[in-house]
């Protein structure tokens, strides 16, 4: 078994985990992060993309609102290029009118959330598809955030600061030392899910940033963390309906947010408490509810083309008395005084504020911290709190630097919708397009595949938006598979230098000769480990002919199945017509349902096979 040694081990490669790795590395800690799948495979990659102004929570959850507006201001500086400055409207539709809007505006003032009431006609002029029956509109600094790009940019910043990130490494064991009352987490065993090798990591401290999976990770340390898992279903429209984030001006509920993100609008969400963060089903009533509620924001939304449905799961947490041994110093009466807070009626009522669980005080387990709850918007603050707690446990005092440090790429300025098209046009890259819908060029694909661990095409989707457009992989899947096959066979144009994560979504960047390489490893001395970044690069399925997951047939099957999983719940009208054409391409021409790999497992097959949709097992 291979061994590594580090100061801080982070569990989870979502926004929070990569944020923790970035923060810890910036503070000079030797840091290793493990993620069981690809970065952002969990909740981070399945949310609607809203950078909250906090206004949504001013009346319901003031603590979360204050966190959101403060982080909103910071992230616009530190992650500028991952954010589109869309602005946000809170609109009062006829169904909602009561005293909420006035209380809302007052609460925004009280909590320093900038809120301007604008006349409905000017709002309608800016957003002509908006419900013309709105009676009041408030404008707030909401924005759209690309959580894939932001996480990759944070991960790159972490790497540059010396952290080691290991995707496709699943935590299987936490090693505890010491006896009762003096227990401490000292090491972890992780499984490289691609090679099947185990890796032992000695760590001074483990930070559990596994989001919805935090309870499972905590259980490995013998600690109970009862997560409230709130499943949210979202639908994406074929193209943007608005250029502004639209919120209903009412108590947060289902289907009351419409976010323009990249080329689509996302209507969300439901909030259903679930027991298991995997196997999220999408029920017909949830789809119907999103359409009905969406029509109240943009009349006709339900008749517009819906591309896809998916579900994410919120890692909500509210402190309750651990059911294990009582913790010294806890006042039992506290929970009796505030029963409603201790056990919220539903996940919708659970706080969105971050939750830091210092297991030394809470459970008597040293070297173990859980950071959960919160919003994507507050991931940086969550990381700061977690690493502050780590400093305290490790007995050092090192100030957080993330609020004043930019991730690579901010010099590009805010994202704007036309960015990809503009680059394709400027450099005449039309003939280089692999994914025509999302304007993904061959060099973007090769750059991502060669320099980022690529086990499935779905990894490339998260990197460059492959297959996320109207045809849902209909035309790009076979092209991408062919390109990856060529890469495997060594026929690729040589990939020079570092992967420009900051530009991973730029069609032109990888095309330009002599683009300056990003500075690497500017941080403290690397962890005493076998150069893991090289390792992760070598593990990339696309460049390692030894790994079976890169079989073109598997890549094809897995990606088609994964795309199909999200299309099946909304299969009507225009998208049904699209899928008929895709069916003709893959089943009638390519015979893709009789590939010689039908029974083989891959790191993705468990994901799409777990879908509860009855159709999800067929192609």
């Amino acid at each position: 078994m291979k061994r590594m040694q580090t100061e801080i081990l982070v569990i989870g490669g979502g926004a929070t985990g990569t944020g923790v790795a970035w923060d810890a590395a910036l503070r000079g800690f030797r840091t290793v992060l493990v993620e069981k799948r690809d970065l952002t495979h969990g909740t981070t990659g399945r949310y609607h993309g809203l950078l909250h102004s906090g206004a949504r929570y001013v009346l319901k959850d003031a603590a979360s609102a204050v966190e959101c507006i403060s982080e909103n201001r910071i992230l616009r500086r530190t992650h500028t290029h991952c954010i589109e400055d869309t602005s946000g409207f809170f609109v009062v539709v006829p169904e909602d009118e009561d005293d909420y809007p006035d209380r809302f505006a007052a609460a925004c003032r009280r909590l320093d959330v900038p809120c301007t009431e604008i006349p409905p006609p000017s709002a309608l002029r800016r957003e002509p598809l908006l419900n013309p029956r709105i009676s009041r509109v408030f404008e707030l600094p909401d924005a759209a955030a690309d959580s894939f790009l932001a996480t990759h940019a944070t991960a790159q910043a972490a790497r540059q600061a010396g952290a080691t990130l290991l995707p496709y490494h699943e935590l299987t064991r936490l090693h505890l030392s010491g006896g009762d009352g003096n227990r401490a987490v000292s090491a972890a065993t992780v499984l490289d899910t691609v090679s099947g090798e185990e890796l032992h990591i000695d760590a001074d401290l483990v930070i559990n940033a596994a989001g919805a999976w935090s309870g499972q990770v905590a259980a490995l340390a013998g600690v109970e963390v009862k997560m409230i898992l709130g499943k949210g279903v979202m639908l994406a429209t074929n193209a943007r309906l608005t250029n502004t984030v639209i919120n209903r001006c009412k108590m947060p509920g289902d289907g009351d947010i419409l976010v323009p993100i990249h080329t689509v609008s996302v209507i969300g969400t439901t909030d259903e408490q679930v027991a298991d963060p995997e196997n999220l089903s999408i029920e017909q009533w949830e789809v119907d509810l999103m359409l009905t509620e969406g029509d109240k924001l943009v009349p006709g939304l339900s008749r517009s083309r819906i591309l896809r449905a998916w579900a994410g799961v919120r890692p909500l947490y509210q402190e309750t008395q651990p059911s294990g041994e009582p913790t010294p110093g806890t006042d039992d009466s506290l929970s009796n005084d505030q029963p409603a807070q201790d056990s919220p009626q539903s996940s919708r009522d659970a706080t969105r504020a971050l939750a830091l669980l210092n297991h030394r005080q809470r459970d008597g387990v040293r070297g173990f911290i859980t950071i959960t709850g919160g919003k994507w918007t507050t991931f940086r603050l969550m990381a700061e709190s977690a690493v502050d707690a780590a400093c305290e446990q490790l007995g050092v005092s090192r100030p957080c630097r993330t609020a004043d440090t930019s991730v690579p790429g901010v010099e590009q300025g805010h994202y704007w919708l036309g960015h990809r098209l503009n680059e394709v046009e400027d450099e005449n890259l039309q003939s280089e397009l692999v994914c025509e819908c999302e304007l993904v060029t061959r060099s973007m694909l090769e750059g991502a595949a060669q320099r980022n661990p690529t086990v499935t095409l779905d990894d490339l989707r998260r990197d460059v938006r492959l297959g996320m457009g109207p045809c849902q992989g209909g035309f790009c899947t076979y092209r991408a598979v062919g390109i990856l096959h060529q890469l495997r066979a060594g026929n690729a144009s040589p990939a020079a230098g570092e992967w420009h994560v900051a530009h991973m979504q730029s069609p032109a960047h990888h095309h330009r000769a002599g683009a300056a390489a990003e500075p690497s490893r500017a941080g403290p001395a690397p962890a005493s480990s076998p150069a893991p970044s090289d390792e992760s690069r070598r593990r990339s399925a696309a460049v390692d002919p030894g790994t079976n997951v890169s079989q073109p047939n598997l890549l094809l099957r897995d990606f088609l199945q994964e795309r199909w999983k999200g299309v099946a719940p909304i299969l009507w009208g225009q998208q049904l017509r699209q899928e008929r054409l895709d069916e003709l391409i893959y089943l009638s021409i390519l015979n893709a349902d009789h590939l010689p790999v039908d029974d083989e497992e891959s790191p993705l097959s468990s994901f799409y096979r777990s879908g509860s949709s009855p159709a999800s097992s067929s192609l």
Partner: protein
Amino acid sequence: MPPASLNSVGLSLNDCIKCNICTSYCPVSQVTDSFPGPKYAAPQSERFRDFGHPFYADGAGPISRTLAAGQMPDASVDYCSGCRVCNEVCPTGVRIAEINARARARIVAARGISLRNRLLGRNELLGRIGSIAPGLANFLLHNPLSRRLAAALFGVAEKAPLPRWHHHTLNRWLARTRAQRLRGERKVVYFHGCATQYYEPFVGIAAVLVLEHLGYEVIVPPQNCCGLPMLSNGEFGAAESYHRRNVSRLIEFVNAGYPIIGTSTSCTLTLKEEAPELLDLENDAGTRALKLATWDIFEWLRERLDQGQLPSDLRPLHQSDQPFILPYHAPCQLRAHRIGKPALDLLARIPGLDLRESHARCCGIAGTYGYKTEKYQIAMDVGAELFDFVAAQSTESNQDTEGSLSFTACDSETCRWQLEHGTGLPSRHPIELLAAAYGLYDLHARRPADGN
């Protein structure tokens, strides 16, 4: 401001299934790399523009901040000729050409318009100015030196087939022959368009003669440019004011129940479809009434034919025994009416006429497109398919045994000029042929058979 609907032009991109049929039929992308193709330019690129948002001339929105800052994502959409072959072949009904026209309007809104495109859009104004002194105007425009200057200064292609002002306008002929015009109970309104008024009054004359031959009084009320040249060049604001003026001038006739009949397929298409859709005027009552009252002249004549109301005194166009070979090209703008090719139904009644139907996609000129220096060669390359077709008819025909090939026919004026430029053969509007077959019109001299 009319409320934008989810059924507007922009949102028709939701119908695209990416099948590429439009790209494989597009005559422009086939001959140049400057235009990446209809699918790329319309349903794909539109998702990266300000999707679904109509354009307003006053610049007050709704346009996003990036667009307001002059940041336009793409330029290649300017190379779409607007021929609408893509619309014609799209199996799912995406309004591709209209999406592109709107995209051009937004480019113009953000970046302004060149003097050349502004001039090309002012068909009517140019026509009116030139017709003050047609001889002088033709000399000034058509001598080689000024063509070279126009190319260098404005970017108007040196060799492109610019029209010549006629020595009198259609209105002058109508005034001069007022006494001979038919008066009667049955009336139709004739929409002549700018080209007929200033360059080809004889097309209008032929139309009036045929309509009167059917027993209809022809009303030619004051009218102005339909606005299409401005729509094509992205000047939606100006196009809208022209269109609204036409509505106010024609609406009384529409309300009286008279059909509005045009010989220019692009003008009638604009009244029927382009202006209402592109300018978001589909809910405007006047626009809607005019749209429903407007007919292409052969569409209307075919109705008469079907009703058995067409006079049958059609005579052969040639006195000899040989058939008169006539290659006929239905212009893109006519095909966009989705009425079939009604001129063929009528011309087929002319004895001894050997009609040869062109299946070429486009002549290339596409209104003002082929007049632009950077697009002239593209237009000629697109037209090659049609020019070759005409040449093939000529090669096949043996003057002595099979008849002669002395004309081509096409319903649209700029297409006829391009056809003449590309084939060297004179081209006629089908109404001229029909008028000639009724013995009302001299096909060679292009004037009434009675000399008036």
